[in-house]
């Protein structure tokens, strides 16, 4: 009945394109970086030029090299944290929603607690207790981020699992005696895919945001290049007051673009999950093509005489 195809709206396509570019940069960024990001031998505070596409920092480093090298760590931590958080939320959500009873009570309480505690302060506290060496380890930081960011997905997945639990096909699987885990993964799991995808993208978004924030605060190893550390160095060197926009803008915009691309793809998934969000009308351009003067308004069904239209259905 439902095809698994995400609506191919321009929003989703743009989102996929931007994300694709950043994934590509994650893979090849460090290789195509023109200089060593740590090299301080350039003239400081250069504006963008052909020599230095995004200019240089007060410390005499090449900005675009830092951006390209930093892309990998930023994205990888986001991806690791997003994956781990999604796994946790899937296990918790499925178990709570399907098993119900005491299990549900306990797991729901746990996710409500993690939802209520503000994530970033908790993260900062946990992170500050980590041994200095571990703070630089993207895997450890990713794990800690995942620990604070799984609860939202778990709540959504639990609700959806509960609504699926009583459907016929699950009932049928129960009657023929399939094991609980088989039903959860084999029968319910596939039907959760759009929601899992949405929660995965959301947690990546959250993770990239949180990781760069930690780095911006100087709480990760400031010698490891990521977009947050770039902003950290820019902030400590008062780049804003010196009006060094070429230093500030690239990492900030890169973070925002990754976030935008994930959010745009999520729009598509949202429209897939909630058909009411799907554009029931037309874009202004499509409307012009079919010769409609204005967008259809609620309670004012348009009248368009078929003399000027062709009946498309009969052919």
């Amino acid at each position, binding site marked *: 009945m439902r095809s698994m195809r995400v609506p191919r709206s321009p929003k989703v396509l743009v989102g996929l394109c931007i994300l694709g570019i950043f994934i590509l940069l994650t893979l090849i960024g460090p290789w195509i970086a023109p200089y060593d990001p740590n090299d301080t031998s350039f003239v400081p505070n250069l504006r963008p030029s052909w020599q230095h596409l995004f200019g240089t920092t007060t410390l005499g480093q090449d900005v675009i090299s830092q951006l390209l090298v930093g892309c990998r760590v930023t994205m990888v931590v986001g991806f690791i944290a997003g994956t781990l958080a999604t796994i946790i939320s899937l296990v918790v959500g499925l178990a709570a929603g399907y098993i119900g009873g005491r299990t549900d009570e306990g797991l729901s309480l746990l996710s409500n607690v993690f939802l209520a505690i503000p994530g970033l302060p908790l993260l900062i506290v946990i992170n500050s207790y980590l041994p200095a060496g571990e703070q630089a380890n993207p895997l450890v930081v990713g794990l800690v981020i995942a620990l604070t960011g799984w609860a939202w997905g778990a709540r959504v997945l639990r609700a959806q699992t509960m609504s699926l639990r009583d459907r016929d096909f699950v009932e049928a699987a129960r009657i023929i005696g399939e094991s609980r885990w088989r039903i959860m993964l084999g029968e319910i799991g596939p039907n959760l895919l759009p929601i899992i995808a949405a929660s995965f993208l959301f947690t990546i978004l959250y993770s990239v945001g949180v990781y760069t924030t930690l780095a911006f605060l100087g709480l990760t190893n400031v010698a490891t290049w990521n977009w947050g550390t770039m902003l950290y160095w820019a902030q400590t060197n008062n780049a804003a007051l010196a009006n060094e926009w070429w230093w500030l803008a690239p990492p900030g915009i890169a973070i925002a673009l990754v976030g935008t691309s994930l959010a745009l793809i999520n729009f598509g998934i949202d429209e897939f999950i909630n058909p009411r969000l799907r554009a*029931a*009308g*037309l874009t202004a351009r*499509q*409307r012009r*093509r*079919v010769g*409609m003067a204005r967008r*259809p*308004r*609620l*309670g*004012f*069904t*348009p*009248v*368009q*005489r*078929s003399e000027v*239209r*062709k*009946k*498309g*259905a*009969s052919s």
Partner: protein
Amino acid sequence: MNEDSLVPVLDVTNFSVDYGYGDDAVRAVSDVSFSLGRSQVLGVAGESGSGKSTLVYGLTRLLRAPGVITSGEVTLHLAGERNGEAFNVLTASEDELRQVRWSQVSIVMQSALNALNPLRRVGKEFDEVLRRHDRTSSKTARQERAIELLALVGLAADRLQRFPHELSGGQRQRVMIAMALALRPELVIMDEPTTALDVVTQREIVSELYELRQKLGFAMIFITHDLSLLVELADEIMVMYAGEIVERAPAVELHGAPRHPYTLGLMNSFPPLQGDRVRMTGIPGSPPNLKSPPGGCAFHPRCPSAHDRCRTQAPPLVAIEDGHRSVACWLHDSSSTEVVPVSLSRRAASRIGQGA
């Protein structure tokens, strides 16, 4: 039927509705014409997807996007202060429509739970409607009128203080009916008002509606997929299939002697409310996909009496039997050589009066 029924309330000619625009358009209602007289009840029957709801929402221009009205004329003959005025629904502006809505045409939707604002007390909803009609009225006068309206449908005045979720399904639907009558409209549209209710409540509400119609004299379009409900309430019944009218006849005649195989199938899918137990047969198959309707008669893939002509040519709606009923079926074409099944032939009419 009285002579009032000769005065028209609604005239519809060649009315068509599409879903979607341009090349993606799908025809949902096709070339429907009918006219409804004062205080008459028109039943519209058909399976879900037959276009019956699309038809009435289109007529009132309440149909949501991507619905588009593609042809026809809809004329509403106003009453009350604007008595005698012929109101062209399809050329009216939004403001003009707003003037006519509820005071001339009101609607009762299938699910009262969804049709009532969950955050408002019933009394507030009444008050809003009544004030919209008459801004000079006092709050107490409006409240008295609301109590009067509730009494009309057999509900106590204290229901005004309730929120929709505090009422039972039957009570909610009665509230909706009372509200539909609030401004004494000429025409009330009932979109499957009883489908979501249990059989006993269904029955009660239908007989209440019958009495209210007798008392207040409004005309009604009653949509349902349950033909047996209509027999007691409707003066005339229209059966729709795939967006077209396939049969139209006075209620008793249609029920006693259907002429279209689809009507017969529809009748056999519901047990009659009274009378003998009959074997339920229903209709094999499912309604056609409107994106790619079958050629010829839209019903032919499911029709037990289909023959070659049905597969290639669509039958027009033609008057039969002295013109007081019409059917769109080749079986009843004068040039047809097919054998008409007994259940659809004129002889079956003798069953009328034996208590259907």
